[in-house]
Protein backbone atom coordinates (compact mmCIF):
# COMPACT_ATOMS: atom_id res chain seq x y z
CA UNK A 1 0.00 0.00 0.00
CA UNK A 2 2.69 2.49 0.97
CA UNK A 3 4.52 1.49 -2.17
CA UNK A 4 1.61 2.47 -4.33
CA UNK A 5 1.05 5.82 -2.63
CA UNK A 6 4.78 6.55 -2.24
CA UNK A 7 6.70 4.71 -4.96
CA UNK A 8 9.72 6.90 -4.21
CA UNK A 9 9.59 8.18 -0.64
CA UNK A 10 12.83 10.15 -0.91
CA UNK A 11 11.69 11.84 -4.11
CA UNK A 12 8.37 12.72 -2.46
CA UNK A 13 10.12 14.20 0.55
CA UNK A 14 12.46 16.14 -1.71
CA UNK A 15 9.61 17.52 -3.83
CA UNK A 16 7.67 18.50 -0.74
CA UNK A 17 10.58 20.47 0.72
CA UNK A 18 11.50 21.85 -2.72
CA UNK A 19 8.04 23.32 -3.28
CA UNK A 20 7.94 24.90 0.16
CA UNK A 21 11.40 26.39 -0.35
CA UNK A 22 10.51 27.69 -3.80
CA UNK A 23 7.49 29.48 -2.37
CA UNK A 24 9.42 30.50 0.71
CA UNK A 25 6.38 30.01 2.90
CA UNK A 26 4.93 27.56 5.38
CA UNK A 27 1.31 28.64 5.02
CA UNK A 28 -1.25 25.85 5.36
CA UNK A 29 -2.32 26.15 1.72
CA UNK A 30 1.22 25.74 0.47
CA UNK A 31 1.85 22.75 2.71
CA UNK A 32 -1.28 20.98 1.45
CA UNK A 33 -0.63 21.81 -2.21
CA UNK A 34 3.00 20.67 -1.95
CA UNK A 35 1.85 17.43 -0.31
CA UNK A 36 -0.47 16.80 -3.27
CA UNK A 37 2.40 17.43 -5.69
CA UNK A 38 4.76 15.26 -3.67
CA UNK A 39 2.30 12.36 -3.89
CA UNK A 40 1.11 12.80 -7.49
CA UNK A 41 4.38 13.54 -9.31
CA UNK A 42 6.26 10.39 -8.20
CA UNK A 43 3.25 8.23 -9.11
CA UNK A 44 2.98 9.62 -12.64
CA UNK A 45 6.72 9.65 -13.29
CA UNK A 46 7.51 6.29 -11.69
CA UNK A 47 7.78 4.50 -15.08
CA UNK A 48 10.82 6.68 -15.80
CA UNK A 49 12.52 5.85 -12.50
CA UNK A 50 13.63 2.31 -13.07
CA UNK A 51 15.89 2.13 -10.09
CA UNK A 52 14.70 2.87 -6.64
CA UNK A 53 16.36 5.88 -5.09
CA UNK A 54 17.79 4.65 -1.84
CA UNK A 55 19.92 6.22 0.83
CA UNK A 56 21.35 3.53 3.03
CA UNK A 57 23.37 5.41 5.55
CA UNK A 58 21.98 8.94 5.83
CA UNK A 59 24.40 9.84 8.63
CA UNK A 60 27.41 8.82 6.60
CA UNK A 61 26.02 10.77 3.65
CA UNK A 62 25.62 13.83 5.88
CA UNK A 63 29.23 13.46 7.01
CA UNK A 64 30.32 13.17 3.38
CA UNK A 65 28.32 16.31 2.57
CA UNK A 66 30.09 18.23 5.35
CA UNK A 67 33.53 17.07 4.18
CA UNK A 68 32.70 18.19 0.63
CA UNK A 69 31.45 21.58 1.82
CA UNK A 70 34.65 22.11 3.79
CA UNK A 71 36.74 21.05 0.80
CA UNK A 72 34.88 23.46 -1.46
CA UNK A 73 35.72 26.27 0.96
CA UNK A 74 39.39 25.32 1.09
CA UNK A 75 39.60 24.64 -2.65
CA UNK A 76 38.27 28.08 -3.48
CA UNK A 77 41.07 29.71 -1.52
CA UNK A 78 43.71 27.37 -2.97
CA UNK A 79 42.48 27.86 -6.53
CA UNK A 80 42.19 31.62 -6.04
CA UNK A 81 45.84 31.66 -4.98
CA UNK A 82 46.88 29.53 -7.98
CA UNK A 83 45.00 31.82 -10.35
CA UNK A 84 46.43 35.05 -8.94
CA UNK A 85 50.02 33.73 -8.80
CA UNK A 86 52.12 33.39 -11.91
CA UNK A 87 50.43 30.79 -14.07
CA UNK A 88 53.51 29.46 -15.88
CA UNK A 89 54.59 27.52 -12.78
CA UNK A 90 51.45 25.37 -12.86
CA UNK A 91 51.73 21.78 -13.99
CA UNK A 92 48.39 20.69 -15.37
CA UNK A 93 47.77 17.03 -16.08
CA UNK A 94 45.27 14.32 -16.84
CA UNK A 95 44.90 11.31 -14.57
CA UNK A 96 42.68 8.29 -15.14
CA UNK A 97 41.21 7.11 -11.85
CA UNK A 98 40.16 3.46 -11.63
CA UNK A 99 36.68 3.34 -10.22
CA UNK A 100 35.55 0.71 -7.72
CA UNK A 101 32.11 2.23 -7.32
CA UNK A 102 29.53 0.83 -9.73
CA UNK A 103 26.25 2.49 -8.84
CA UNK A 104 25.54 5.06 -11.63
CA UNK A 105 24.15 7.62 -9.21
CA UNK A 106 27.22 7.19 -7.02
CA UNK A 107 29.50 7.75 -10.00
CA UNK A 108 27.73 10.94 -10.98
CA UNK A 109 27.93 12.29 -7.43
CA UNK A 110 31.62 11.40 -7.35
CA UNK A 111 32.21 13.20 -10.66
CA UNK A 112 30.31 16.24 -9.41
CA UNK A 113 32.30 16.27 -6.18
CA UNK A 114 35.60 16.07 -8.05
CA UNK A 115 34.62 19.04 -10.19
CA UNK A 116 33.70 21.09 -7.14
CA UNK A 117 36.85 20.39 -5.09
CA UNK A 118 40.55 21.38 -5.10
CA UNK A 119 41.96 22.04 -8.55
CA UNK A 120 40.23 19.15 -10.29
CA UNK A 121 37.62 18.84 -13.03
CA UNK A 122 36.19 15.50 -14.06
CA UNK A 123 36.47 15.30 -17.84
CA UNK A 124 35.29 11.97 -19.08
CA UNK A 125 33.96 8.62 -18.02
CA UNK A 126 35.04 5.63 -20.07
CA UNK A 127 32.26 3.71 -21.77
CA UNK A 128 32.66 0.70 -19.47
CA UNK A 129 32.31 3.00 -16.44
CA UNK A 130 35.59 1.82 -14.99
CA UNK A 131 37.75 4.89 -15.31
CA UNK A 132 37.13 8.53 -14.65
CA UNK A 133 39.45 10.95 -16.41
CA UNK A 134 40.26 13.93 -14.25
CA UNK A 135 42.08 17.12 -15.16
CA UNK A 136 44.29 18.58 -12.44
CA UNK A 137 45.16 22.26 -12.41
CA UNK A 138 48.45 21.62 -10.62
CA UNK A 139 49.55 17.99 -10.61
CA UNK A 140 52.56 16.99 -8.55
CA UNK A 141 52.23 13.29 -7.82
CA UNK A 142 49.62 11.47 -9.95
CA UNK A 143 49.61 8.32 -7.78
CA UNK A 144 48.92 10.05 -4.47
CA UNK A 145 46.44 12.46 -6.05
CA UNK A 146 44.36 9.57 -7.37
CA UNK A 147 44.63 7.75 -4.05
CA UNK A 148 43.48 10.80 -2.13
CA UNK A 149 40.34 11.15 -4.24
CA UNK A 150 39.62 7.45 -3.82
CA UNK A 151 40.02 7.52 -0.05
CA UNK A 152 38.34 10.81 0.61
CA UNK A 153 35.32 10.69 -1.69
CA UNK A 154 34.87 7.28 -3.25
CA UNK A 155 35.00 5.21 -0.05
CA UNK A 156 32.11 6.93 1.77
CA UNK A 157 30.07 7.02 -1.44
CA UNK A 158 30.61 3.30 -1.95
CA UNK A 159 29.39 2.60 1.55
CA UNK A 160 26.28 4.68 0.95
CA UNK A 161 25.36 3.24 -2.44
CA UNK A 162 26.78 -0.26 -2.66
CA UNK A 163 25.71 -1.72 0.64
CA UNK A 164 22.46 -3.06 -0.76
Amino acid at each position, binding site marked *: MTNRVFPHPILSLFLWILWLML*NNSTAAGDIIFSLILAIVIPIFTSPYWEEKIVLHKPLLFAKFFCIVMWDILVSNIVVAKLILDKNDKLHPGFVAIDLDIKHPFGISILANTISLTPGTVSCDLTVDRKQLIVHFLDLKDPESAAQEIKNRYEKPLMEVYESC
Partner: protein
Amino acid sequence: MFEIVLSVLILIGAFFTLVGSIGLYKLPGFYMRLHGPTKATTLGVGTILIASSIYFTVKTGSLSLHEFLIALFLFITAPVSAHLMSKVALHIGTKRVDRTQDYIDKKDDKDSLD
Protein backbone atom coordinates in the same frame (compact mmCIF):
# COMPACT_ATOMS: atom_id res chain seq x y z
CA MET B 1 26.98 44.91 13.32
CA PHE B 2 24.33 43.34 11.12
CA GLU B 3 25.36 45.46 8.15
CA ILE B 4 29.04 44.68 8.71
CA VAL B 5 28.47 40.92 8.59
CA LEU B 6 26.39 41.27 5.44
CA SER B 7 28.88 43.51 3.69
CA VAL B 8 31.79 41.22 4.57
CA LEU B 9 29.88 38.26 3.11
CA ILE B 10 29.02 40.17 -0.06
CA LEU B 11 32.60 41.41 -0.44
CA ILE B 12 33.98 37.87 -0.06
CA GLY B 13 31.46 36.72 -2.65
CA ALA B 14 32.36 39.49 -5.06
CA PHE B 15 36.07 38.78 -4.59
CA PHE B 16 35.80 35.08 -5.42
CA THR B 17 33.50 35.70 -8.38
CA LEU B 18 36.05 38.21 -9.67
CA VAL B 19 38.90 35.72 -9.19
CA GLY B 20 36.89 33.14 -11.14
CA SER B 21 36.50 35.55 -14.04
CA ILE B 22 40.18 36.53 -13.88
CA GLY B 23 41.05 32.83 -14.03
CA LEU B 24 38.86 32.38 -17.07
CA TYR B 25 40.72 35.22 -18.76
CA LYS B 26 44.24 34.61 -17.54
CA LEU B 27 44.83 30.85 -17.40
CA PRO B 28 46.38 29.30 -20.52
CA GLY B 29 44.60 26.60 -22.48
CA PHE B 30 41.02 25.37 -22.60
CA TYR B 31 41.20 22.78 -19.80
CA MET B 32 42.86 25.07 -17.30
CA ARG B 33 40.40 27.83 -18.04
CA LEU B 34 37.58 25.54 -17.02
CA HIS B 35 38.87 25.52 -13.43
CA GLY B 36 38.18 29.19 -12.80
CA PRO B 37 34.44 29.36 -13.40
CA THR B 38 33.60 25.93 -11.92
CA LYS B 39 35.08 26.56 -8.51
CA ALA B 40 35.87 30.13 -7.69
CA THR B 41 32.26 31.01 -8.47
CA THR B 42 30.68 28.41 -6.18
CA LEU B 43 31.97 30.08 -3.03
CA GLY B 44 31.43 33.52 -4.56
CA VAL B 45 27.79 32.98 -5.34
CA GLY B 46 27.43 30.92 -2.15
CA THR B 47 28.37 33.72 0.24
CA ILE B 48 26.27 36.28 -1.65
CA LEU B 49 23.28 33.92 -1.34
CA ILE B 50 23.94 33.40 2.37
CA ALA B 51 23.99 37.18 2.80
CA SER B 52 20.70 37.44 0.91
CA SER B 53 19.17 34.71 3.04
CA ILE B 54 20.20 36.43 6.29
CA TYR B 55 19.02 39.82 5.09
CA PHE B 56 15.55 38.69 4.07
CA THR B 57 15.15 36.47 7.12
CA VAL B 58 15.84 39.41 9.42
CA LYS B 59 13.92 41.95 7.34
CA THR B 60 10.71 39.98 6.79
CA GLY B 61 10.89 38.07 10.06
CA SER B 62 10.25 34.73 8.37
CA LEU B 63 12.84 32.22 7.32
CA SER B 64 14.05 32.78 3.76
CA LEU B 65 15.46 29.57 2.35
CA HIS B 66 15.01 29.64 -1.39
CA GLU B 67 18.54 31.01 -1.74
CA PHE B 68 19.74 27.56 -0.74
CA LEU B 69 17.83 26.14 -3.70
CA ILE B 70 19.77 28.43 -6.02
CA ALA B 71 22.99 27.19 -4.42
CA LEU B 72 21.85 23.58 -4.76
CA PHE B 73 21.00 23.94 -8.45
CA LEU B 74 24.25 25.78 -9.07
CA PHE B 75 26.23 23.01 -7.39
CA ILE B 76 24.49 20.46 -9.59
CA THR B 77 24.72 22.33 -12.90
CA ALA B 78 28.22 23.90 -12.74
CA PRO B 79 30.15 20.59 -12.62
CA VAL B 80 27.86 19.00 -15.21
CA SER B 81 28.44 21.76 -17.76
CA ALA B 82 32.19 21.70 -17.06
CA HIS B 83 32.17 17.92 -17.48
CA LEU B 84 30.31 18.12 -20.81
CA MET B 85 32.59 20.82 -22.19
CA SER B 86 35.77 18.99 -21.25
CA LYS B 87 34.36 15.69 -22.50
CA VAL B 88 33.68 17.21 -25.90
CA ALA B 89 37.10 18.88 -25.87
CA LEU B 90 38.78 15.53 -25.16
CA HIS B 91 36.86 13.83 -27.94
CA ILE B 92 37.65 16.40 -30.61
CA GLY B 93 41.23 16.70 -29.33
CA THR B 94 41.35 20.33 -28.29
CA LYS B 95 44.93 21.55 -28.03
CA ARG B 96 46.46 21.33 -24.56
CA VAL B 97 49.09 23.45 -22.89
CA ASP B 98 52.46 21.93 -23.85
CA ARG B 99 53.52 21.06 -20.33
CA THR B 100 50.37 19.06 -19.64
CA GLN B 101 51.24 15.70 -18.11
CA ASP B 102 49.20 12.82 -19.42
CA TYR B 103 48.60 9.77 -17.27
CA ILE B 104 45.68 8.40 -19.21
CA ASP B 105 46.38 4.81 -20.15
CA LYS B 106 46.79 5.01 -23.91
CA LYS B 107 45.42 1.55 -24.61
CA ASP B 108 42.14 2.15 -22.83
CA ASP B 109 42.11 5.68 -24.10
CA LYS B 110 41.57 4.51 -27.67
CA ASP B 111 38.44 2.55 -26.78
CA SER B 112 36.98 5.12 -24.50
CA LEU B 113 37.36 8.13 -26.72
CA ASP B 114 35.95 6.58 -29.87
